[in-house]
């Protein structure tokens, strides 16, 4: 072996470019994942939970109104039933008007039933959203474990959820909108 060859095999080698590339990728990935784990995913869960609440309230309101409408329809039906004998000797147009009114009352019953049945969407939507919230929670937990491997404790560094941009979103309606407004105050404390 020549002296030159011996020096080449014993001299410390420089950093492996491939390892350096992978480390740079991991550092970048951790930098990006950390805020997602500490802020974005909790924010997603909060928002989806709020949507569930909002749709529940909307469905309840529709069902309340459908019940009121049903009671009105019943009163109208009863009134027409009482009126019918009084119109026995009435003119043909008056009798026809009574028949038309009775038909409309029956049609209202079918429409009310359809409206009530359509509110089933709320339960279906809520179940899908709850499954999504659970999946997001699991994902955050796993990400937290991965970050813990590289010495980052996500739970200890959780920042207040930044959700100001959601205030203008169509889904941000009462009453959970107030929760968001309160949370916004909390967020702003950090920037004062």
């Amino acid at each position: 072996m020549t002296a030159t060859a011996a020096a080449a095999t014993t001299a410390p080698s420089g950093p492996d470019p491939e390892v350096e590339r992978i480390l740079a990728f991991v550092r970048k990935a951790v930098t990006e994942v950390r805020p997602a784990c500490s802020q974005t995913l909790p924010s997603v869960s909060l928002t989806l939970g709020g949507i569930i609440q909002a749709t529940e309230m909307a469905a309840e309101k529709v069902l309340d109104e459908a019940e009121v409408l049903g009671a009105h329809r019943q009163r109208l039906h009863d009134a027409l039933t009482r009126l019918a004998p009084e119109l026995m000797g009435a003119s043909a147009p008056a009798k026809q008007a009574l028949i038309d009114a009775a038909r409309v009352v029956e049609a209202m019953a079918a429409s009310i039933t359809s409206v009530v049945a359509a509110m089933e969407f709320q339960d279906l939507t809520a179940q899908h959203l709850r499954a999504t919230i659970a999946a997001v929670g699991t994902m955050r937990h796993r990400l937290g474990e991965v970050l813990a491997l590289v010495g980052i404790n996500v739970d200890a560094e959780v920042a207040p959820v930044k959700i100001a941009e959601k205030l203008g979103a169509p889904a941000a309606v009462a009453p959970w909108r107030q929760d968001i407004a309160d949370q916004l105050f909390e967020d702003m404390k950090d920037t004062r």
Partner: protein
Amino acid sequence: MSAKILIVEDSRSMRRIVRSALESEGYQVAESEDGRQALNALRDVAPHLIITDINMPEVDGISLVREIRRLPSFRFTPVLILTTESGDDMKENGRAAGATGWIVKPFDPDQLRQVVAHVLKARGVA
């Protein structure tokens, strides 16, 4: 005497929808929010038929059916599962637990009423 039906469902809006579909047919309807509450209510309500969801807090629908089948007074009370679950495995679990029938949400109120009438007739309840 109209038949008494117990609805077991954690969603309030869904309970109201099922109640509306059944009361329009003249059935008496009672409600429970989950399986545990339903088990506690069984003796008071003494339903002719039970309609239950599967995914509920506390005691889920499949466990509820198993518990009901252990109670001598309700061993033969029909139990219909009303759920978003439609997988064959889940249906088999329900059947094995002792469920009478399986209706997948979203449900058609007319279909529900037909199934209820059929099951009650088979049990000799008008």
